[in-house]
């Protein structure tokens, strides 16, 4: 037996085992354990779960009004952004016929007049004709281009608004940030929390899926500045973004905080009076030239005092 050869073979085997063990340990420690392993039951409870907002199910999570005129005849299919489910569930429960909503316990039936996808799915569905009204934030350039390619023009009626907020870990000493600093972070010009008054820690600038409502809001905030991906930040401390409604319900669980922007806190008052600098509209979107009169009746209801009350009671800022 060649002992030298055997030694080399054993060394190769050991090296391979150590390499895989090191790789898996690094994935677990850096990515899974550090960032995504801990679900908080409290936060899960606060997030928007489809089963908690099924119209006509007696759900206490939905605010709806009684006595409004219900739609008859050709019932428009409604869909929207995930975070706006409480709003359009309230509209549906108020003015849609009960038998037009079919929920199978996990999702809405394709024949149901109410669907639940997300911003990306909803914009695709309205262009493709699978939805007649969607309740969403503004479309991205890609979503508008998709509509144009398919010869569809979208009408957008603002029915409410909400703040676009930036969140950091609760232990981060930075409380306030400016719009220019946000642009600096997401364009890669500001890379360390020490540049914003924090400790010498890398900034992990989190992004969202392309076409999501919040990623589109960031793109609009950035204007002509490119968003530069940062793949080196896993060891840093994060900044992320969302809409105020989605975050507020989870704040009580601790762990994160919303940053003031230009010294202004996003409250109902500062969003309504426009002093909070990055508010975003919520829109009822339908196809231009829509011939189904019920689409216009539904949008009129959304703008009525009853509809606006639903917007407000669902956690957003009404426009009227």
């Amino acid at each position, binding site marked *: 037996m060649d002992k030298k050869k055997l030694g080399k073979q054993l060394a190769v085997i050991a090296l391979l*085992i150590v390499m895989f063990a090191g790789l898996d340990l690094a994935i677990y420690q850096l990515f899974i354990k550090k960032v*995504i392993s*801990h679900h908080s039951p409290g936060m899960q409870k606060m997030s928007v779960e489809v089963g908690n907002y099924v119209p006509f199910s007696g759900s206490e999570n939905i605010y709806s009004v009684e006595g409004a005129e219900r739609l008859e005849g050709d019932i428009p299919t409604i869909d929207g952004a995930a975070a706006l489910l409480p709003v359009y569930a309230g509209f549906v429960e108020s003015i849609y016929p009960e038998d037009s909503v079919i929920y199978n316990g996990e999702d809405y039936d394709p024949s149901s007049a109410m669907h639940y996808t997300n911003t990306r799915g909803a914009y695709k569905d309205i262009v493709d004709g699978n939805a007649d009204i969607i309740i969403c934030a503004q479309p991205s350039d890609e979503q508008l281009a998709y509509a144009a390619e398919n010869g569809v023009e979208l009408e957008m009626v603002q029915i409410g608004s909400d703040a676009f907020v930036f969140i950091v870990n609760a232990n981060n000493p930075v409380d306030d940030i400016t719009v220019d600093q946000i642009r600096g972070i997401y364009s890669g010009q500001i890379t360390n929390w020490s540049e914003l008054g924090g400790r010498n820690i890398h900034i992990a600038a989190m992004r969202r899926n392309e076409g999501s409502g919040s990623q589109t809001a960031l793109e609009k905030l950035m204007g002509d500045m490119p968003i530069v991906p940062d793949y080196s930040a896993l060891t840093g401390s*994060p900044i992320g973004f969302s809409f105020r409604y989605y975050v507020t319900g989870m704040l009580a669980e601790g762990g994160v905080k919303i940053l003031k922007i230009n010294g202004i806190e996003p409250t109902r008052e500062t969003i309504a009076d426009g002093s909070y600098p990055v508010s975003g509209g919520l829109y009822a979107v339908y196809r231009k030239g829509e011939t189904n009169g019920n689409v216009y009746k539904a949008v009129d209801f959304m703008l009525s005092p009853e509809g606006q009350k639903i917007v407000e009671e669902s956690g957003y800022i009404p426009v009227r």
Partner: protein
Amino acid sequence: MKDKTFVIILAVIMAVGVAATTALLIHGYSLWKEISIVEMIANWGY
């Protein structure tokens, strides 16, 4: 150790290693899809 035995051992280690890494990545990806941005930032720390 015979060359054939050595190759078999390497193949087994590779197969187990790739399977474990793939499973870990799939598990991580499914968590990543489920978790909210708020939880992620809370977990991530400062």
